[in-house]
């Protein structure tokens, strides 16, 4: 994905916009909707209350300005830099773009490697009083920054300086990303937007095993269970040893790989998100009665040997080994599973082919995949920063350079095989629907014989699919994802039938949530695991709900509902 190109473009436009604002003084009428916590207006054709930013050469800061930042790098980024000769973290095509087009140079106070190190370093730096001009944080940290009165309200800046394309991209996921960054009615951060729908889960099944055992494709959750039973007992890997696993599961029980969300969703239970109960109030999915039914079935499955008897001690890394070694054929998970670990399985055994199926239901109501807000980072601006609008200019340039009219996707997002070039830009918003859109573009082109006319991201992906079809087995995962019958076809179904079950609580974690989540998480994980293992009877679930409420769940629910009521008004 050429995120880099788009990023640069957005950054450019943002910077250009901001330069104009700076040169032209305040655009006085952009006051937005004062007092409401809803997202800024999405329509690019401008309601009267939005001032129109004008793009152009005047966007550039002259003389150039310097913005202080803190940086985070990681292994893949260093791998990318290794492929782009002569470029470094502080000096690369993106930094050059921001400098040339917007007149912005970055000064990094420090750069940490790895997200955990970044968090720790940021905490100690903040405690020492070192705050950069712009800073990227999660929702909890955003709240802390606001409590410490370190950052500014960005609503007006956003209204006045975000380009139409930027506004369109940032609101593609609805109001939720902005709600999450809105504290006490003020917009404290610009969402570094990510896709929420990409968090939806599927049931992945090895179709070569289905064929081998002469099983039909599943239509209900019961079918899936039957298939996993067959896989566990009928020796599909043909080695005369009872060493295959029915359903793959890792010890944390939930997550994008080998988790149980998809299974629970088949019972209309949503264990990791907040849902509306019968009276329209928010309740946490893990405490709802439907969860109990799903747990009972899982308990039965474990007892009958359909699950790995040792799943409780295997983390996701270890669990991947089971898939990679070709010992399992059913797993719930997100769309990227074909890339890892299933590609590895395919590398070891070219016959191993996995397909992503839509979540199936245990009854006649369709299963709805539970999703949560994909955006998890927000850009905040220090209160006394000299050029706060530069942030929006960067956003504009990034989005425009990758996905706008002058997009150079192949330079800034994904040149050759330097995947991850887009990360060289500090801001990295990406249109929430871009993956699905890429799939749709490919599917449409394929249907009309116009594959050669694809551009941008869709073209890059289609090239990989074509290469796979020409015999490069290492690219199988791309076909499994984006080919016509790939998993994104199912994503399309999800979207068209509006089946996503979105987390109803998307605000920043409340006071009690921050205090009690760890405890409640431990309780949930421990109870569910022991029920599935059979160490606890299924009725222990009822005790669990009581304990959950007692240990802070009740208070959390109250706070969540307060937020919910406030956000609806």
């Amino acid at each position: 994905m050429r995120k880099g190109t788009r990023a640069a473009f957005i950054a450019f436009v943002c910077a250009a916009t901001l330069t104009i604002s700076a040169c032209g003084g305040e655009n006085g009428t952009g006051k937005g909707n004062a007092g409401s916590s809803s997202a800024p207006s999405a329509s690019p054709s401008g309601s009267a209350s939005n001032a129109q930013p004008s793009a152009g050469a005047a966007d550039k800061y002259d003389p150039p300005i310097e913005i202080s930042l803190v940086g985070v790098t990681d292994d893949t980024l260093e791998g990318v830099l290794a492929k782009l000769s002569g470029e470094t973290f502080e000096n690369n095509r993106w930094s050059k773009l921001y400098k040339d087009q917007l007149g912005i140079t970055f000064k990094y106070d420090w750069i940490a490697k790895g997200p955990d190190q970044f968090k720790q370093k940021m905490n100690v730096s903040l405690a020492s009083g070192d705050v950069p001009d712009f800073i990227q944080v999660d929702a909890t940290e955003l709240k802390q920054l606001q409590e410490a009165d370190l950052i500014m309200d960005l609503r007006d800046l956003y209204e006045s300086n975000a380009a139409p394309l930027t506004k369109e991209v940032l609101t593609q996921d609805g109001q939720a990303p902005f709600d999450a960054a809105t504290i006490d009615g003020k917009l404290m951060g610009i969402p570094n937007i990510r896709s929420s729908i990409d968090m939806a889960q599927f049931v992945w099944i090895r179709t070569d095993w289905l064929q081998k055992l002469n099983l039909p494709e599943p239509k209900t959750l019961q079918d899936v269970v039957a298939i996993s039973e067959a896989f566990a007992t009928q020796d599909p890997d043909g080695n005369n040893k009872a060493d295959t696993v029915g359903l793959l599961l890792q010890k944390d029980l939930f997550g994008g790989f080998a988790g149980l969300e998809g299974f629970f969703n088949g019972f209309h239970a949503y264990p990791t998100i907040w849902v509306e109960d019968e009276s329209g109030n928010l309740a946490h999915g893990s405490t709802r009665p439907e969860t109990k039914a799903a747990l009972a079935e899982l308990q039965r499955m474990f007892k009958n040997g359909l699950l790995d008897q040792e799943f409780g001690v295997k983390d996701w890394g270890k669990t991947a080994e089971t898939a990679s070694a070709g010992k399992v054929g059913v797993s719930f998970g997100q769309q990227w599973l074909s890339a890892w670990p299933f590609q590895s399985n395919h590398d070891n055994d070219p016959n191993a082919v996995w397909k992503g199926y839509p979540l199936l239901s245990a009854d006649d109501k369709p299963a709805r995949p539970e999703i949560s807000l994909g955006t998890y980072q927000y850009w905040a601006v220090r209160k006394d920063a000299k050029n706060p609008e530069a942030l929006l200019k960067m956003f504009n340039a990034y989005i425009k350079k990758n996905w706008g009219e002058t997009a150079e996707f192949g330079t800034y997002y994904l040149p050759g095989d330097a995947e991850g070039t887009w990360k060289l830009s500090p801001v990295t918003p990406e249109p929430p629907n871009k993956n699905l859109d890429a799939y749709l573009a490919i599917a449409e082109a394929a249907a009309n014989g116009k594959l050669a006319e694809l551009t941008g991201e869709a073209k890059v992906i289609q090239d990989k699919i074509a290469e796979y079809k020409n015999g490069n087995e290492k690219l199988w995962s791309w076909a499994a994802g984006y080919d016509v019958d790939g998993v994104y076809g199912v994503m399309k179904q999800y979207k068209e039938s509006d089946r996503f079950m979105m987390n109803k609580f998307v605000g920043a974690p409340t006071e009690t949530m921050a205090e009690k989540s760890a405890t409640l998480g431990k309780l949930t994980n421990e109870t569910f695991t022991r029920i599935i293992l059979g160490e606890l009877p299924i009725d222990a679930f009822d005790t669990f709900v009581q304990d959950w409420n007692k240990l802070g769940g009740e208070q959390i629910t109250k706070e969540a509902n307060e937020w919910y009521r406030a956000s609806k008004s």
Partner: protein
Amino acid sequence: MLGQSTGARLFSAFNAVFLIALSLLCIAPLVHIAAVSLSSSSAVTAGWVKFWPVDFTLDSYRFVMTRGEIWSSMWVTLQRVALGGGLNLLLTILIAYPLSKESATFRSRTGYAWFFFFTMLFSGGLIPWYMVIRQLELLDSIWALVLPAGVPVFNVVLMLNFFRQLPKELEEAAFMDGAGHWTTLWKIYLPAALPALATVSLFAVVWHWNSWFDGLILMNRPEHYPLQSYLQTVIMQRDMTFIQHLSRAELAIVSDRTIKSAQILIATLPIVFVYPFLQRFFVKGIVLGSVKG
């Protein structure tokens, strides 16, 4: 010399076998890691590699060789081992010697001893420590890795106990000859305490080699990370929420254990060879004989 009884011989044999088995148990994981580093990525992901490479390949080492980070971080570590290890050793000796004296001759010793020992148990926590270092403008320099850990109290306590075990006659003889404390320390005590010196040197060097947390927090650029800090960023098992946000290419690298294993091996082997080198010092103090005579 009396000959060995059968019982003694049997014991010797069993002893040797037992200890050798124990050492094999200890080297096993390293052998496993070496095997992983020389195997193909997919074989490793499938969990097929035990003690021997599967699909032998030097790819991971080739990859590591081209990436400069491990070498630049090794250089940082070598600096901190030399400077920090040296400082540790020096201060250990300088502090242990006075503290090894009797209270009668050196009345402040117990006060000093508690002064140092207290810091072994109490600490102010991460943030105050960081702020002090920052205030002294040591951040992002090699001195941040060397100075704060300058006094390894455990080693001091060890050393002072070893000093105490040396016979009193040594010191008395030296004073008779008109030697002051400095001379006594350098010319008499140290040669007599070679095993102890070797021990605390080893501990100081190993501590600096292995230490990773300070590097991560106190350095402002990844290029300045010492070796183990760099390694930590490579092998850290992230939690699931992190990998969910990765792109496809990144996912492949995140779980590539062959590269991680190659890096682990490169980062571990050098220090392993230090101990055999120091073992020659585990011999009895040569001075003992001279005092008797």
